[in-house]
């Protein structure tokens, strides 16, 4: 190449996308910090961050004042775990959505396609309905954690089954994965419906509320339980960036570009199953995040996974926190299921973006 051919007029990246990678990541991080602060500061009791020093003092045993104890209960025992788990659930659902969309090369793909959510739901429903009956000896020892553990196991087991079906010839066939996932999802749904049909009024209510999602059961032990998953996702996801970028052109092309196709698929499925399984176990079924958040990131900063993966995590966490604040404030002292709030907030925002920009180049 001649030097003339190499001369570039300016260093600023031309703006086909509204935001650069750095702008989106920094902006999303700021939003997340604001949302997390708000999540700690807002709640039906009206206790705000000004009480944090006293709450900490109470936690450390430096004061036995009753109202400080109350502040400790609210700020440290209720809001903090809720904020942390909310961030985890939002981030992992959004990242899982982005990974699925890259894997299936389809902007409408959803983590539910690999059967995680429906498997988790089936396990949760079975726990609610059979937990006091047939399954009692298995589930009672787990106490309060029976439901999350069952949901997680159900989600991961379903994905495992799916991988077995789709990976029969040594290679993971993405097309087979999709179809088998839909089939397994339908089967899980049917079994879930069957169990629900045989449940009584009270169990049905429990089921319904669980399936609409809630962060209300967040506790510090649960925070501990999800920490390894958060670490797993944080560590394994960057390894997917190059692979998923290559995947966008198709598996053959990805191979030609130097991507280890099978390893990418394997890591993608592991990360998705683990993160969605854990998220569903913690908070029930919360839809919408997995599809919408990656979309928004792509609309703003383009489809390079170097920005889509971290951006989705940050934006997903933020969105979940905002929805949770609304869930616990709008009808206080009662609480709205967060899945409903999520759809209510996210859908109009998404529609607005789509109408304004078109789906960034797609028909």
């Amino acid at each position, binding site marked *: 190449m001649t030097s003339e051919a190499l001369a570039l007029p300016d260093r600023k990246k031309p703006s086909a996308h509204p935001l650069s990678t750095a702008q989106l990541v920094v902006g999303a991080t700021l939003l997340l910090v604001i949302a997390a602060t708000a999540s700690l500061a807002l709640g039906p009791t009206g206790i705000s961050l000004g009480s944090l020093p006293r709450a900490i003092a109470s936690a450390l045993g430096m004061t036995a004042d009753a109202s400080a104890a109350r502040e400790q209960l609210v700020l440290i025992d209720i809001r903090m775990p809720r904020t942390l788990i909310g961030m985890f659930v939002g981030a992992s659902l959004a990242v899982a959505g982005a990974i699925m969309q890259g894997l299936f090369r389809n902007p409408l793909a959803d983590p539910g396609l690999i059967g995680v959510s429906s498997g988790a739901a089936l396990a949760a429903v079975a726990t609610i309905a059979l937990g006091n009956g047939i399954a009692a000896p298995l589930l009672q020892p787990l106490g309060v954690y029976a439901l999350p553990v069952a949901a997680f196991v159900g989600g991961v087991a379903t994905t495992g089954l799916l991988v077995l079906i789709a990976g029969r010839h040594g290679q993971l066939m993405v097309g087979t994965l999709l179809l088998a996932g839909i089939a397994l999802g339908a089967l899980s749904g049917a079994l879930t419906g069957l169990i629900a049909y045989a449940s*009584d009024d009270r169990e049905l209510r429990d089921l319904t509320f669980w399936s609409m999602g809630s962060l209300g*059961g967040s506790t510090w032990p649960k925070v501990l339980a999800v920490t390894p998953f958060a670490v797993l996702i944080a560590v394994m996801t960057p390894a997917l960036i190059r692979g998923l970028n290559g995947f966008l052109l198709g598996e053959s092309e990805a191979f030609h570009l130097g991507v280890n196709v099978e390893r990418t698929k394997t890591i993608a499925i592991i990360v998705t199953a683990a993160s969605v399984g854990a998220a569903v176990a913690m908070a029930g079924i919360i839809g919408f995040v997995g599809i919408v958040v990656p979309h928004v990131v792509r609309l703003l900063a383009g489809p390079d996974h170097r920005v889509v993966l971290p951006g989705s995590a940050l934006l997903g966490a933020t969105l979940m926190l905002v929805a949770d604040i609304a869930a616990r404030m709008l009808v206080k*002292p009662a*609480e709205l299921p967060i899945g409903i709030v999520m759809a209510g907030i996210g859908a109009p925002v998404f529609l607005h973006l789509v109408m304004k920009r078109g789906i960034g180049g797609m028909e």
Partner: protein
Amino acid sequence: MFLRRVYAFETLRVAVATALMLVAGAALAGKTIVDGSGRKVTIGDTSRILSIGGDVTEILYALKADGKIIAVDTTSQHPPQALGTKTSVGYMRALSAEGVLSTNPTLIIAAKDAGPPPVVSVLQSSSIPYVVVPDDRTPEGVAAKIRFIASVVDAEAAGEALAKEVEADFALLAEQRAKITAPKRALFVLSVQNGRATVAGTGTAADAIFKLAGAVNAAGDAHGYKPLADEAGVELAPDAVVTMQSGRSGPPSDPVTSVKALADSPALKQHKIIEMNALYLLGFGPRCARAARELMIALYPELPIKRASAEK
């Protein structure tokens, strides 16, 4: 680690708080009781009560302790002014921890079914006394429930009076029940969807009420709530079908008449479909004996059954 410290100091804090409360409570006539779940709970100030559970609220009103109630749950449907005038904390199995705390109760009296479990845990770990009401679906259980709640809110006298009234009512009911020579078969239908009914077998509140009302549970072979298969339904042949009045709670139900399995039953042929309010019939609250009697009257119109004298 932070958590261990939190829980260690939490225990210390609760211990200190409890000690302080015991001392103060001795001055304020506070007391320690064992609640329906076996936990020891120390009760101090009873001026701001959060009542969770339809039967719990109803008993508090009957004890004239309703002035102390600051908030109820959505199943507290009797008397109507409970939900009408008090703050609602939502459905009793979907409570919000911080939401409950924000109503600033000094005492929480809750039915066993309150949930979800993690939220109950958090509430029990707060400094607010959380009392679980014992639940036993028998006449003795109802009286015990009344006495228990009365002792919690320092209304022992009113409680004893109400409990005796209820016991007398049940005794009368038992006498009237003894007059039944040919027990009728009744079927409790929880809901109907698409022509299929969900019915109550043994181990349900409906089954217990049927026993009190002198009826035989036509679905006595099943346990819990079960959907009624078409053919099995034909064999049940109930003389009467009992169902809940469609209120605000629960999904709308198709009419019982659409259930094919029951089309040939004596109940539907003679159009003996008895609709009663859910809390009234199944709540096992103070009006329990009355509800059972009403059911009995509906089932056995030919029997001379008197209603009890003091009624409200």
